[in-house]
């Protein structure tokens, strides 16, 4: 799940998020070759067929909300979003 606009997507300190790579602090996975930020939801090693697509989209919405808080406060995105738990 990528954010295609804006590109580059900036952090509160104006640095591009895609420079972080796989980041726990900002809940991102490796960026796309063209620089799109990839939102982390379930890592490949945690993915399974019982995870519904709507849960992934939900994580996307939560990430955007947390990103807004990050921009407003400068705090890490991880301060607002828990790691996605193992799910049935």
């Amino acid at each position, binding site marked *: 799940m990528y954010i295609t606009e804006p590109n580059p997507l900036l952090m509160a300190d104006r640095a591009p998020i895609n420079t972080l*790579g796989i*980041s726990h602090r900002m809940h991102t996975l490796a960026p796309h070759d063209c620089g799109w930020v990839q939102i982390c939801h379930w890592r490949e*090693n945690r*993915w*399974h*067929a*019982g995870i519904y697509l709507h849960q992934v989209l939900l994580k996307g919405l939560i990430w955007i909300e947390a990103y807004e808080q990050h921009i407003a406060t400068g705090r890490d995105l991880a301060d607002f979003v828990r790691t996605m738990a*193992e*799910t*049935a």
Partner: protein
Amino acid sequence: MTTNDPQQQQMIRDAMKSIAERKPGRTKLVYDKTKRTIVAVAEGSQVPRALNITADDADMFGAITLSGTWLREAWPSLAAGSDVAVRFTLWDKGDAYTLCDLGPQVGPITAEVAVGLEGPGDSDDTRLRIILSKDSSAAAHGPCTFVAPDGSTFTLKGYDHHDGRVVPLDVAIVEVQPALSERRAGLLENTVLDDRSIVCFGLGTGGAYAAIELAKCGVRRFTLVDPDRLSVGNVSRHPGGISQVGRYKVNVVRDAILEKNPDAQVFVYPIAVSPEKLEDIRSLIRGANLVICGTDNRPSKLLINQLCIEENVAAVYGGAFRRAYGGQVLRVRPRVSPCQQCFISAMPDEAADVEISSPTEADAVAYSDRPVAVEPGLSLDVLPIANFLTKLALMELLEGKPTSLDILRRDFSAPWYLWLNRPEPGTQYAGMPPLSDSIDEMTINRWYGVEFERDTACPACGDFLGTMAAAHGIDLDAVVIPSKA
């Protein structure tokens, strides 16, 4: 020999060679009752010279191991009077000679041995010889006796000619398969597993152990799949040793299987389980009696799970928890018992608790700003899990074949099994009572069979679509899926 006296050594050799060749010699061995020892009596000597012969001295002859199968195959040439050359591994400076053809792994030093019938040619200077002497006496039996295809009986003796001396060697003729089956007799009949085939995905410590143990049980058809090579780091846990570092694990385990069951058929595939290889993997699973999954990542387990369900092949999955504080084994009978996907849905925490034994596994769950440490467990903590997995696999392979092990079926009725090596801090098992204090509470070093139900809406083995549609009031028959133009 324990004696360091060269003269004594030579006297012993001369006497023993004379005895072995049934020829009169200048020196004879005699037991002296008064001295309670064996003495060598040299011809013409008035005073017997006492020799301090110990049990080690009695074992001074080297041993040659030859197979009855090889002898029968070579018999037409031998019967025609020809010597047949055959290669042996020399172990321990010539103390043991093992027919190279017995197994897949030849030792570092080999030598050619000439095998022939007793006759004028047997006194030539060939370094190593095995001579078949016709022996029609009633006493002709034992490990050095060979009954030829024409019914005649021979006694075999080996000779090592070197440094102007002839050192006799004992010959043992072995019949490999019957001898291998001897220690299984009564529990597993000789041929009960002959027609069973298994596919092993992942040949790390547990997978390799399971494959080799099943070969010892008599399984003869193996397909081994693993893309990794044996590293030095693997050696402290894996059956493969330091001298095999760099080899594909599938080849290391194939040779170990053939060392235990030389008649086994072993097919090796050094490939990864991945969606790109889906149909290749499916073709390996199709027709097998059982899949053993010892892979170290969820995507491969789920792919194998899906293919096993589609091909209706039972599977057993084994894995250690982090730092191998415990482990789990899951048996899947397609559409009968819970599958790997059902297990993840039912017990997500247990399914996610895995050992991180390599940098590759750590990288799969690490972040650049939150590294994951490699925390492997000890081999001795992994092996109980592998051992249970092997037992469960054996019971699956024996399904429908009555054996003495049938009494175990009641103990192996659960789909999932849990084992704990220690009360690991930070886990729900940290507060377990000591083993010696507990009878009916959960403790370390006990297996627990855990029942749980199949997920009828499981995306892998259940009616996922039907259940979803029913939950949302959708009539699937009315759904039109547009085809790609």
